[in-house]
C-alpha cells in the first residue's frame, strides 16, 4: 500500500495497490488553520478502494468506506487519536499538542 512517487506514475499509469494525489488545494489564509481539499486516485485490488491510512492516500477495505467506520482504516498518524465525527461524516485526528485535524470525505468525485 505504498504511496506512488509522481515520477514513477508517468502518464497516469498506476501500479496496482498504489495511489497518487491528483488534486490538492490548500488554504492557509486563516492563521493557525489550514484547509486542504485533496483528491487521491488509487489503483486498488479487488475488495479495496481509495482511502486514507496514516494520513496518506491508500487502498483500504471497501467495507470501511461503505460503512463509514473511518477510524478502522487508521487514518491518523501515529500518536494521534482518531475519533469519528458526528453521523460518521468524517473523523478527527487529535494530537496532544492541541493540533486537531478534521477530515471529511466528500461524495464520489466525478473524475
Amino acid at each position, binding site marked *: 500500500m505504498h504511496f506512488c512517487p509522481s515520477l514513477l506514475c508517468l502518464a497516469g499509469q498506476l501500479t496496482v495497490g498504489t495511489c497518487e494525489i491528483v488534486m490538492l488545494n490548500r488554504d492557509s489564509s486563516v492563521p493557525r488553520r489550514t484547509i486542504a481539499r485533496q483528491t487521491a486516485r*488509487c*489503483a486498488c485490488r*479487488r475488495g479495496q*478502494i481509495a482511502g486514507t491510512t496514516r494520513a496518506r492516500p491508500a487502498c483500504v477495505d471497501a467495507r470501511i468506506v461503505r460503512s463509514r467506520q473511518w477510524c478502522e482504516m487508521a487514518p491518523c498518524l501515529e500518536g494521534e487519536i482518531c475519533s469519528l465525527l458526528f453521523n460518521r*461524516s468524517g473523523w478527527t485526528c*487529535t494530537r496532544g499538542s492541541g493540533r*486537531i485535524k478534521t477530515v471529511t*470525505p466528500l461524495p464520489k*468525485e466525478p473524475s
Partner: protein
Amino acid sequence: MRIVMVTSPCTPFPVLWLVQFLLWFHNHGPQPTEAIPPCPTPCTCSNQASRVICTRKSLDQVPNSISDNTRYLNLQENSIQVIKSDTFRHLRHLEILQLSKNHIRQIEVGAFNGLPNLNTLELFDNRLTVVPTQAFDYLSKLRELWLRNNPIETLPAFAFNRIPSLRRLDLGELRKLDFISEAAFEGLENLRFLNLGMCGLKDIPNLAPLVRLEELELSGNQLGIVRPGSFQGLVSLRKLWLMHSKVSVIERNAFDDLKILEELNLSHNSLHSLPHDLFTPLHQLERVHLNHNPWVCNCDVLWLSWWLKETVPSNTTCCARCHAPPGLKGKYIGELDQTHFTCYAPVIVEPPTDLNVTEGMAAELKCRTGTSMTSVNWFTPNGTLMTHGSYRVRISVLHDGTLNFTNVTVQDTGQYTCMVTNSAGNTTATAVLNVSASDSSNGYSYFTTVTVETVETVRGEDTKSAGQYVNETYIEFPNPTVRRELDGRPGTTISPSLSSLSSLSSKANKADNSVTSVIDVTNIPGLDDVMKTTKIIIGCFVAITFMAAVMLVVFYKLRKQHQLHKHHGPARAIEIVNVEDEIGAGAGSGISGGSTVNSGTAGEGTLRIHHPEVINLPNIGRTDTLNHYYKTHHFNNNVMGLNIGSEGMIPGGILSSKNQHGQDIPISCTSVPISTSNLLNTSGNGTNSNPSSMSPPLPMSLPMPTLGLHGSIKGFMGQNQNPQMEPLLFKGSSKENVQETQI
C-alpha cells in the same frame, strides 16, 4: 584654484606659471576631441581604426593597444597558442573576431569577457581539444561560432548552453570527435544552421533541442543506418544533407518528424532501396538527391518512381539510376513503371496472434513481412494509427513491424490491426489483445477529503475548539437526514438553537455541497442553554430518585436501631457513632462529597454545596449554639439537613443571616419543575418564604452536585421520617456530633 592658493606665499613665480599655462592653452586648446587612435604595430587599420587587420604577422599573442573603437578584428593565420583571460576586455564595440588558422590550443575562462556586441567568433583551423564553453559567458549577441577543424574529442552536455543567441554553429571536420552528449545541443533554441559534416559520426546525435534548425549538414559521416526518431524535434528543418555518409539502410518512417523538409540529399551513399512511402509524410519535400546509390530496381522502388513523377515531373531523370538488376542498369528510377515488374501485394510472414495477458506485463503483436521495404501501420482499438518511430510511452512499432507493449493496461484491451503496404497493395492482419486485471479491480477509485487543521496553543481551549470543529464539519457536509429533521421541526421549545443550525446548514448546502470555506460558529448560545437545562433536569431527576432510595434505606436502619436502643439512654452517644459508621460505609463519600461547608458561615453551621469535589470542614467552635438551637426548637434535624433546607430554618434566626450565601445548590434545582428545595421547604417548615429559592437558574457549573443532594436527602429524611432521632443526635455537645455534621 590651485593658482590662487599658491599666490599668497610668493607672487612672482605663480604669475609666470599662469602666463605659461595660458600660452599653452592658447596653442593647444582648440584641439579636435576625436584623436585617431593608434594602430597596433604590425597591423593595418582602416575606417578610423574600427577595422584592424593583423593577418599573417606571425603574432604569437594578441597585440595590446587595439583601439576601443574596433568593430572588426582579424588575427587569422598567426601563431597564437593561448587566448588569455580578459584579452579583449576593452573592445566593447567588437562585432567580428577572427582567430582562425592559428595554433590556439587553449582559451582561458573569461577570454572573451567584455565583448557584449560580438556576433561572429571564428576559431576554425586551430588546435582546440575541447569546446571552450567557459569562455562563452556574456557573449549575449553571438550569432555565429566557427569551430570547424579542431581536434575536439567530445561535445559535452550543455556545451553551448551559454550562447542561446547562436544562429550558426560550424562543427565540421571535428575528426577526433568520438562522443557527443545527449544534451550537447541543449539551449541552442535559436540555431538555424548546424554543420556536423565530416566528423566521423556513426550515429546521429540527439538534435531534439534544435527546434528552429533549418539546415543540417551531416555529410561525410559513417551513419550506416538512419533510424526513425533520429530527427525528432527538428520541426523547422528545411534542408538535410546526408551525402557521403555510407548510408545503406533508411528505416521505415525515418523522416516522419521532418514535417516541412524541402530538400533532402542522399547522394553518394549505399542505398539499394527506400521503404515504401518514406516521403509521404514530407509534404513540403520538393528536391531529393538520390544519385550515386546502387539502387536495385524492383517492385520496392516503384513507389519512388511514382513519387518522383508526381513531385518533380520536370526532372525525373535528374538523379537516381538503377544499378541492378542488370536488365535495368542505368535506367532512371523516375522512368520506371509497373510494366517492368510483376508486383505482388505484401505477404505477412508472421501475423499477429490473439493474446491474453495480465495487466502490467509486456506484450508483442508481430507483423513481420518478407521485406522491410513495405510500410507497416497499426490501428489500435481507440482508432489511432501507429507507425514505426511514432512516439508513445508504452507502445512502439519496431522496425520489423512488431507492435511492442512494455507494460499493458486494461485500457489496451481490444482489436489491433496491422496493415502492410507496398506498391501493389496492402495486406492486413488482426489480433485481439485481452488484458485482464489479474488481482485488481477495474480502473481507479477516487477519494476526496477536506481537511481542516488547527493548532490550539492554549490547552484549555482544546475542548471548546473541538466542539467548534464538529459544528464546522457538520455544516460543511450536512447529512441529508439530519438536515431534514432540523428543518422539519423548527418550532419546539429549543427552537432558537436548532433553527440557527438549520439555517447554517442550508447555507452550506447552497454552496454546492463541497464547501471549502469554513463558517465560523464560535458560539451558538441557544444550544448551550438547552444543554444546560437538560443537564439540570437529568441531574435533579437522578437526585430525587436517589433521595427516595437513600431515604428508605436510612429510615429503615435508623428505625431498627432506635428500636434496639430504646431503653438505653446513657449509651446513646456511642450508638450514634456506630450508626454513622454504618452510613458512611454504605453511602461513603457520596454523602459527604457533595457538601461544602463555607468556613465563613461555619459559625452558624450552615452547610452549603459549592462544588462537588471540595469539602470545607465547618468551624466546630460553636456547636453548642447549634445544639442549643436544635434543642430549643425541638427541631428534629440532622445537621445535613441544613444543606438544602436552610430556608426552612429562617425562624431560628441564627441561620437566616447567611441564607443569601447558602442558596447556590438549592437554587440550581429550583429551575427544575420539581424543585428539590421546594420539596424540602414544604416538608420542612413549609414557609417557603425565601423568594430566592425559587429564583431562575443561576450561572453555575453543570456537573450536578448530585452527591451534595445525597447529603441533603439525608437531612430531608432526618427531618421528616425520623423525628425520634433528635434526642439521640444532639443530646451531648461532644465531638461526635460535629463529626456527624461533616458527614
